């Protein structure tokens, strides 16, 4: 089905978001004290759409860092799935939008559905904002993404200067857009402008390396000294995994007081020793080398095996936040170089 592209003058954005708020709880990037993260947009509050890449990824909109799973009192349990209005996420970048597709494959599989994820994610609308100016640390184009990629979006929004173009991607997106009067049909010239911005943005990112053989190369390097080298400076913190839009590992904990309690789930990180430490004290991943290998293998080998794609969207947050500058792009290049070197030796 051919769907129309719409146009919204920038001055009307607030009104548009109000309209969106009638049916949805709107989450958008908001700046608070120097930190830009997604949160519920309050009436009159300004969204930080100018900000290229939010400090925190929007995964916490659908998968909060700490979340009550159920309440209990003695034997009685009450599940605590989200019961609010459907969520509209406005201003996620294409890399982040793609992360929802990857996370969805983990949380919803044929055998088990995660009801907490589903309660927030189902019926949600994702408006992603195309990146006219990708950052130097962005590498979405290495991973089948791009600054104008629409994977995981219901609507792709493009900034064309004085206006935003709204390109419906899903039928849900289209049906919402077509219900909003203040949107006008985009002209051919508008679409051309967006097209130009897209070409410029894609060009600015340069030619990406081909990652087709990354999984095979990685699998072959399981015991390679490469891991000692990469992990030697790792601090073992979770700045990478907690800022990653596709990292989803969690812990489950009980908190209680005087007979009442909750079971909560909270983000956990494969970089922490406790992640795999067993009750007996045995830890199958005893050092940072094992843990760092798990992180990279999970993203570029296991995830591929399980979910058919790399578990990384190339947002570049870990590149920017790692306190010791472990650069995942460098790691990938290093893997190819090491694999090639090995091939040469044989």
């Amino acid at each position, binding site marked *: 089905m051919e769907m129309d592209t719409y146009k919204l003058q920038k001055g009307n954005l607030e009104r548009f978001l109000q309209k969106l708020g009638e049916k949805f709880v709107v989450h958008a990037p908001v700046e608070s004290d120097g930190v830009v993260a997604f949160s519920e947009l309050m009436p009159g509050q300004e969204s930080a759409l100018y900000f290229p890449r939010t400090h925190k990824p929007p995964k916490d909109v659908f998968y909060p860092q700490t979340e009550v799973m159920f*309440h209990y009192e003695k034997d009685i349990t009450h599940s605590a799935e989200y019961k609010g209005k459907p969520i509209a996420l406005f201003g996620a970048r294409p890399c982040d939008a793609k992360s929802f597709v990857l996370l969805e494959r983990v949380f919803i599989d044929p055998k088990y559905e995660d009801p907490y994820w589903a309660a927030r994610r189902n019926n949600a609308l994702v408006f992603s904002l195309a990146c006219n100016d990708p950052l130097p640390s962005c590498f979405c184009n290495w991973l089948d993404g791009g600054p104008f990629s629409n994977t995981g979006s219901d609507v792709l929004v493009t900034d064309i200067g004085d206006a935003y173009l709204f390109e419906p991607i899903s039928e849900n997106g289209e049906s919402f857009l077509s219900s909003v009067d203040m949107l006008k049909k985009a002209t051919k010239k508008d679409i051309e402008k967006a097209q130009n911005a897209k070409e410029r943005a894609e060009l600015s990112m340069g030619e990406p390396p081909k990652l087709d053989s990354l999984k095979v190369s990685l699998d072959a390097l399981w015991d390679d000294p490469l891991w000692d080298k990469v992990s030697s400076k790792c601090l073992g913190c979770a700045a990478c995994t907690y800022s990653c839009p596709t990292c989803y590992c969690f812990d489950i904990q009980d908190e*209680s*007081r005087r007979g*009442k*309690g909750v079971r909560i789930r909270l983000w956990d990180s494969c970089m922490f020793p406790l992640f795999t430490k067993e009750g007996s004290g045995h830890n199958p991943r005893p050092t940072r080398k094992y843990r760092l290998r798990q992180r990279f293998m999970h993203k570029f080998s296991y995830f591929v095996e399980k979910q058919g794609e790399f578990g990384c969207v190339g947002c570049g947050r870990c590149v920017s936040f790692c306190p010791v500058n472990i650069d995942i792009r460098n790691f990938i290049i290093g893997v190819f170089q090491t694999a090639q070197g090995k091939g040469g030796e044989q």
Partner: protein
Amino acid sequence: MKDFEPKIMTFLCNWCSYAGADLAGVSRIQYPPNTRVIRVPCSGRVDPLFILKCLQDGYDGVLVSGCHPGDCHYISGNYVARRKFAILKTALEFMGMEPGRVQFSWVSAGEGEKFSQVISKVTEGVKILGPARKLVKSMDSLESPHD
């Protein structure tokens, strides 16, 4: 607020302050009933984390009491404790915690009277401050919306 009866946690060292409390008891000296007592071997045993934990769990005040300097059963436990408490108090008050919430005292086994005075003073101080707010862990999430 007039009816506010604070909950105060006291950590008493086994050798002096606990005995002091005991003496206050057998001597039938009156003091406010707002305290819960945890007996510890030495004031040096009290990890500042215990104190923070009490505040987090909703105690309105915390008192640690040990032997007078020079009288420690373990020679120097209270000297080390004194340094830890000085730093804890500095940190908490710098952050904006009310000074009266966390208190320290030396009470010997013979000071039943002093013990009751200390408890009265701490209780009165905390009463004026009102219920603790800072650092208290909200347990709202424990309340099921189904109740």
